[in-house]
């Protein structure tokens, strides 16, 4: 029986979006725009990634004017390593620009 792939194509696209600038905290709508995922698909993926310790999440500090506080996400160091390995083993179109850069070792969490 074939071994199941570690990440689905949708999860890879989320990882690739988060890899674009691993130090930057991203919000859900921004990731949804980058990946084209619907909210009902994106958030379960973020939840699973957070459960596995690959993504860290925090609420925006302070109360911004005119809108509620946002939940922000970015890859953990372990998440960046996993994303790099997964995207390296994936056809380029699934990884996106950020994913390809991580896969090539051009981006590191500590950069």
């Amino acid at each position, binding site marked *: 029986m074939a071994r199941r792939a570690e990440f689905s194509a949708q999860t890879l696209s989320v990882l690739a979006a988060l890899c674009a600038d691993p130090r930057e905290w991203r919000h*859900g709508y921004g990731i*949804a725009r980058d990946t084209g995922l619907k*909210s*009902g698909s994106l*958030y*379960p993926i973020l939840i699973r990634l957070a459960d596995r310790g690959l993504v860290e999440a925090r609420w925006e500090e302070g109360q911004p004017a005119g*809108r*509620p*506080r*946002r939940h922000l996400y970015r890859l953990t160091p372990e998440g960046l390593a996993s994303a790099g390995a997964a995207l390296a083993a994936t056809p380029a179109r699934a990884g996106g620009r950020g994913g390809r850069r991580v896969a090539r070792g051009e981006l590191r969490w500590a950069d």
Partner: protein
Amino acid sequence: MGGLTRGLAGWLRHSARLVPAGRRAWVEALWAEAGQVPAGPARLAWRAGGLRLIAREALLARRAAKVLVFAAAAVWVVHAAWPGPAGNPATAVNRLNVVTLLPALAGLPLLARWLFGPGAPGPMARVLRSGGYAAVLVLTLAKAGVEQVRDNPAALPHLSSDASVPVTTGMIYTWLVESVFLLVIGLYVAAILAVTARRPRVAPATLAAGTGTGIALGAVMYAVAPLGLAGHATDPWLHGFPIALVVLLAWVLLFGGPVLAGVVAARCYRGPGSLEQIRKARIRQAVAAGFLAAAVGALMVAVLGSATIALMSRAGWVLHWLYPGQHLPAAVSYANQLAASVRADNYGTILLVFPVIGLLMGLAGGGLAAPAPLLGPPPGGGGPPRPPGHPAPDPPGGIRLAAAADGRLVRLPGFAEDSPYDAEPALPRAG
């Protein structure tokens, strides 16, 4: 649109309580982002995704609840079926059933998931799985009650003369029968898990057709044999012509029901593929529906009948319900219970034979229905079949048409553009 979005927002806010506390932050996060999404359909879709997230997370919590419900039911079955006097052979049999069936019920879903994939989505598959598990648990419990009555050594002198006591009552015979029973029940559970898994691709319509027919068959069979299966109907309510009619209906449903379910399942099937693939898929659906119809019917009559017999000795209202308006002396009532508990063994025959009949009849239903709805001409056009590598010749004039993706007919390249068939047809001249 604005009202719909606001309504959905309110719904999202309230239904977030369904999600476990540790997950609610994610729903709130999605909710907080909604204001950034452009108003209109996009925002509506974003909030609809929130409802999907809530449903998903709430269902995950429900999965944990299901495990707890099963564990509680298992404890209850152990509590009811385990105790018994040491001198009663039923005690050992019941304990064997408990220690075999409960681990099997717990482990088979894992095996089924590995072999057939996770459970199929949709309410029909979920109802069938839950119903199947509930049925097996109730059957285990009811069977324990029946065994305790029947195998009680003190009961034998009270058996009525028409009670068919098994000739071989030694322990080897008992263990053999019990092993077959456990194997059959294990196969039932495995089959239910398989047809409700994703990989076998049994359509919801197939599950509905099979289950619906099975419930009808089970109800009629229960009307015929509520107190065990014998050469005659054991129904205490009906006599003469009415019971003959019900028996006839049971036979018709046993053989005709799976055929009907198979035909319905095959006709309802809509799937991709060539005509041959669709035909094979329809036959598979028909076989699954036929099997389900007979298996659900068999399980239903076995569960209801065993439960009725088990309750005869425990609940007075069951006797009143079975023999309305009759005052049965205690000895007669006890003899009836013993006779019924002996006949309950024959439900095993139903459990064994019905699915085989269902499979065959479902196959027949598939054979009837699958070739009928031809969606177009056979590949290669009309005429006699040709050997491989010998395509049909081009039509006169060199025109070949193919269906374009958008449904229009277009001319394939490489064929005569100025075919005489394009010209207006000339009217034959008179004279």
